[in-house]
């Protein structure tokens, strides 16, 4: 086809320029996204290493490998690295950055310089966060609750850490802002809001939350920063400040942050479900609306993190009631995904395996969230392992698994290489088994009363902890293998065809890897999720059948 001829004529974005400077100062969204991706994968291994240290320490009651102090630093670093460096930027900043303009058929994001500067903000923030490890490590938990985090003897580590979080926050805001404007202003003619792939809807909703919620994190950690440097006292009870106010500030951001993690994951899963069932997503509009409504509702529910913090009963009641509302769009999405499977032509390639794991684990994560939204049961379960298991199901079992699915799905597109399919399938099952083995026992020990962030525990919980640790190692090994084979395939993988999965969105019309401005010639906008014209063509992947001349244009849904 002519497009292939053009693709070979124009160099792809790896080849167009060379050298360190061409990467360090690049304005190309794909290169920036790729640099993010490597940073995030590195952080993932780092955060995973801390997780394994935590789990190893908990193998036995009492001291196993580390003292209580060191253990506290492990779980703090695990949380901070995983949340601020891996999951929040994971899908939007890395994969979103690469795929959003291509899915829009645009040459780049709206503000390429801002994009590069937000990458460097991320790097600086990450460096500050890592600097705090050298400076003695933070042991406050990733939540930095006052007044514990006001302890001056720990200022040396807390100051770089909160400063790092501040920078990471602004990196996230700028990425979000960029995406919002790109979606608004760079949709090509013929792509209305309801012709956008669901991934873009999800990224749009995510960006909305990033722009509206993250500034509050910025000011909160800034205040924590001045508490340490200037002793300003807004959160310090000895100076008349209110430590619970910190929790309000913190959760005003950090609850939407949970949705910043999960909503893009939902977008990715929607794409995977339709591509690998070879049929349009069931209930497109409901999914699109539920992404946006999740984004808006996420601002109304932060108080459910504070049911036992001394919050007023009135606030507890209101927040509990509002919390249930987020369950509804989530439930809609799950039902729609399952509905998409119906009468499909389901291909169990690696991305789809991750998508199916996502559905199951997100269902568990969502349903266990109900226990925590109900006042009477949350009082019992709050700050126990039940909560730990619940949010790992959502953040890791769902968000990170979707990230892996997306990574495998688009890997051939932006690297131009295939990963080893069989190994990847085995690993995805390893992730699923390891993950569930790690966290299912935690529900039980949580509801039986095992508090979280405990270095030592009662012997009755030993068996659960041991199961959990074994699961964590299965999970850790699987993830490590994933990162390894991806790195190898980056250089040595089989050359990828233009459309290896038969996707219908615009990125599959771009060459693999894409050229500097993504499309050598303007892409044609096709009906969204229309699989009729796409056929399998051996090693060339999937190709678009030319429409017979004079055929009537397809009706849009």
């Amino acid at each position, binding site marked *: 086809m002519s497009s292939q001829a053009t693709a070979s004529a124009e160099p792809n974005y790896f080849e167009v320029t060379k050298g360190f400077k061409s990467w360090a100062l690049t304005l190309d969204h794909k290169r920036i996204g790729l640099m993010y991706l490597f940073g995030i994968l590195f952080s993932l291994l780092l955060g995973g290493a801390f997780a394994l240290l935590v789990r190893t320490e908990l193998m036995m009651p009492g001291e196993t490998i580390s003292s209580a102090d060191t253990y506290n630093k492990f779980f703090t670093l695990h949380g901070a690295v995983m949340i601020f460096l891996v999951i929040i930027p994971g899908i939007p900043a890395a994969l979103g950055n690469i795929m959003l303009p291509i899915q829009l058929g645009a040459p780049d994001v709206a503000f390429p310089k801002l994009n590069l500067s937000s990458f460097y903000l991320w790097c600086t923030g990450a460096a500050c966060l890592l600097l705090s490890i050298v400076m003695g490590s933070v042991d406050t938990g990733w939540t930095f609750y006052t007044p514990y985090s006001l302890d001056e003897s720990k200022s040396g580590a807390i100051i770089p850490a909160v400063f790092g979080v501040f920078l990471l926050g602004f990196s996230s805001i700028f990425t979000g802002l960029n995406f919002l404007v790109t979606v608004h202003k760079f949709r090509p003619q013929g792509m209305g809001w309801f012709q956008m792939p669901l991934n873009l809807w999800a990224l749009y909703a995510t960006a909305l939350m990033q722009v509206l919620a993250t500034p509050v994190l910025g000011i909160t950690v800034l205040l924590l920063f001045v508490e340490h440097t200037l002793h300003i006292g807004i959160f310090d009870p000895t100076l008349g400040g209110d430590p619970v106010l910190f929790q309000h500030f913190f959760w005003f951001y950090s609850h939407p942050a949970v949705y910043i993690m999960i909503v893009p994951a939902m977008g990715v899963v929607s794409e995977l479900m339709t591509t690998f069932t070879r049929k349009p997503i069931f209930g497109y509009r409901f999914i699109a609306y539920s992404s946006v409504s999740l984004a808006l509702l996420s601002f109304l529910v932060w108080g459910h993190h504070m049911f036992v913090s001394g919050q007023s009963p009135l606030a507890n009641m209101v927040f509990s009631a509002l919390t249930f509302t987020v369950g509804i769009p989530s439930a809609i999405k799950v039902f729609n995904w399952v509905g998409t499977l119906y009468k499909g*032509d389901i291909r169990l390639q690696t991305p789809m395996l991750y998508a199916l794991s996502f559905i199951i684990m997100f269902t568990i994560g969502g349903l266990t969230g109900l226990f925590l939204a109900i006042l009477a049961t949350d009082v019992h379960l709050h700050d126990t392992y039940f909560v730990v298991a619940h949010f790992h199901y959502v953040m890791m079992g769902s968000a990170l698994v979707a990230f892996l699915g997306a990574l495998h799905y688009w890997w051939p597109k932006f690297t131009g290489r295939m990963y080893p399919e069989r190994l990847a399938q085995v690993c995805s099952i390893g992730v699923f*088994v390891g993950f569930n083995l790690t966290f*299912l026992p935690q529900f039980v020990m949580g509801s039986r009363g095992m508090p979280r962030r405990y270095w030592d525990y009662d012997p009755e919980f030993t068996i659960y902890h041991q199961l959990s640790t074994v699961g964590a190692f299965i999970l850790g090994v699987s993830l490590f293998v994933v990162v390894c084979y991806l790195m190898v395939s980056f250089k040595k993988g089989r050359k990828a065809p233009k459309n290896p999965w038969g996707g219908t969105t615009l990125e599959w019309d771009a060459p693999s890897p894409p050229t500097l401005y993504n499309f050598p010639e303007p892409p044609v906008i096709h009906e969204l999720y229309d699989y009729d014209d796409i056929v399998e063509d051996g090693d060339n992947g999937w190709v678009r059948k030319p429409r017979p001349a004079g055929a009537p244009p397809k009706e849009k849904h």
Partner: protein
Amino acid sequence: MKNRLLSVLALVISVAVLAGPASAQTPAAEPPAAAEPAAEPKTPNVLWLEEIEAQPWNTGGNFWLPTPAAEEADPSDFMFYAVLGLSIFFFTGVTIATVYFVIKYRARPGHKAQPSPSHNDTLEITWTVIPTIICVFLFLGGWRGYLAFTAERGGALQIDVTGQKWAWSFTYPNGTVDNNLHVPVGQPVRLRMTSTDVLHSFYVPNFRVKQDLVPRRYTYLQFTPTRPGVYRLYCTEYCGKDHSMMKVRVIVHETGGYERYLATVEERSATLPPVELGKQLYEKKGCAACHSIDGSPRVGPSWKGIWGESAKMADGSTATVDAQYIKTAIEEPNAQKRAEFAGGQMTSYAGLLSEKEIAGLIAYIESLK
């Protein structure tokens, strides 16, 4: 190959379902009280402190929840089992549908995606409305249970609770201070709680109650114990190094036992020699978290051989460890810190210890020289 993968996936899913919530369904269906193990400890009749310390706590309960031991457990457990049932129902539904569709519509030679509607408003509205209705009921149920926690109860026994790194102190109406919580069965108890340093949280799994302790605030917690026995009491708000050691016992006494306990404590502390009293306080008041008695340094100096030493202070002066110094160190711990422990932070025990108790501690430290 695809078939093999499918069967693996199906197996994994079904194992997950069986090992997880499904296997729990049986105990969940039983009345919670029936799942008690036979070895549940009896309430102590004689209430010597040492014996209480030695009592094992109740580890009974069913697969999901520990033995309920307060009135508050009823609404909480009811909601727990209700949501558990609901969750298992929905989870099973979603999983079975997923697995069934994956098997039935898997790609294989000759199989194609069949035409099916891209949306179905009736169906979608139905599965929007049903969860909404369920959520309304869940909220109302949870709220009712919560109201039961917070409603003021007449005739409550008020106990003051102070949390500090990393010990609890419970002050009974007669002024007795203990580090374990003793309550009578069947009487409402109202805790007035506060913290002297960072956030802590009071949690008794068997009572299903939890409340944070906030410095410079009073928070309140009520419960009515229904089952005599010994239960664990955790701190569940992360508070630093020994967070996981901030774990004591709640003793629910049978009728009359609580009064006997208070009388015994009073009598014993009246007759206890000061050194013994000091030793007990050392163990009870959380001193041991920071001060050893074997010479090894912890957060603070070891008490062994400290008596009569003259030590260098953080501000450069020198002070002799004598009765006056110890008293000051207890009441204003950071006024005169030893140079080598300048980084340690101790909270003041002023007002938490009586003069007699301070004298006991002084005598105990003197006895360790």
